[in-house]
C-alpha cells in the first residue's frame, strides 16, 4: 500500500488516526509499504501490514 493512501485509513474500533511504523518498503519514489504496523493514537491497538495489505479487522475477528 502506498503511504499516501493511508491518510484516510483509521482505527476500525474508535475511528482515530493511526501511527505508521514501516519495517519494509519497496524501492522507488512512491514505493509501497509492504510490512509494518499501524497503531491507534487513541486506544493503542495495533494492526499489522503484511505483503502490502493492512489488516484492519477488529482484533476479535483476526482469529
Amino acid at each position, binding site marked *: *500500500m*502506498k503511504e*499516501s*493512501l*493511508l491518510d*484516510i*485509513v*483509521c*482505527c*476500525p*474500533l474508535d*475511528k482515530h488516526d493511526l501511527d505508521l511504523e514501516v519495517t519494509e518498503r519497496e524501492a522507488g519514489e512512491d514505493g509501497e509499504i509492504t510490512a509494518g504496523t499501524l497503531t491507534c493514537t487513541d486506544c493503542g491497538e495495533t*494492526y499489522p501490514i503484511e*505483503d*502490502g*495489505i*493492512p*489488516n*484492519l*479487522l*477488529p482484533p476479535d*475477528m483476526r*482469529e
Partner: protein
Amino acid sequence: MSVRDEFDAWAADGRDKGMEERHWNTAKHVLARLPVEEGDRVLDLGTGSGYALRALADSTGMDRGYGLDGAPEMARNAREYARAADPDADLGFVVGDFGSLPFADDSLDHAFTMEAFYYSGDPHETLREVARVLKSGGTFYCAVNYYEENVHSHDWQEHISVDMTRWGADEYRAAFREAGLHVAEQDNVADTEVDIPPAAEFPTDSWDTREAMVERYRELGTLLTVGVAP
C-alpha cells in the same frame, strides 16, 4: 465458519476470477452509472478480485480506490491483479469487516458493492458505517443478485456457511433511509449476455426450464439500490 475461512477457500481455488466473469455482465452497467469525477475516492466493499476498482481506474479520472475484503486471500489476489494491470493506479487493498470500516468520517466520494453486502453480520450497522465514511453528496451503489424478488436465488444460503440477509427491494430502500441515506434510484439491471440455451436443451444441470433462466437473468438480474449521503 467465518467470512475469512469461507472466502479464503474461494480465493484459493480461483472462484474470485469466476465471480468476476459472471458478475461483470451486470456490474459493468452499474459502474457506468457512477458519477465519478476527477480526483474522487472510491471504496469497494467485498472487493473479491478487485475488478470494479481496476475498471474505474481505467475509465474515470478517480484519484484513488480502496478495496476492502474480510478474506485475506481475496485481498492478496486483488492487489496482485491490480498491480499487474496498472502499477501506477492508486489502488489500495485492506482486510477489514463491513461492520467497522477503517476509514475516517466523510473521507470517500463513492462506495460500491457487488454481491457482498448481504454477507454483513449486521446490514443496518454496515449502512450506518457507509453513511459515516461518505462525504456529503457521496453515493452508495449497492448491487445484489441474492434478494427476495429473485426466487431463483433463495436456495443459495444452503451452499454457504456465512449467514445471508435476504431483503426485498422495499426493505433495501427502507434500510437505506433508516441509516440516513437518501434513496436516489432502484433498478433491476439485466444480464443480457449470459448464454441461455435453446428450449430443447432444458432441463439443464442448473435450470428446469428456459423460462426460469430467462426470468433470472434477463428480467430480475441484479438489484441495484443507490443511496446518497445528505
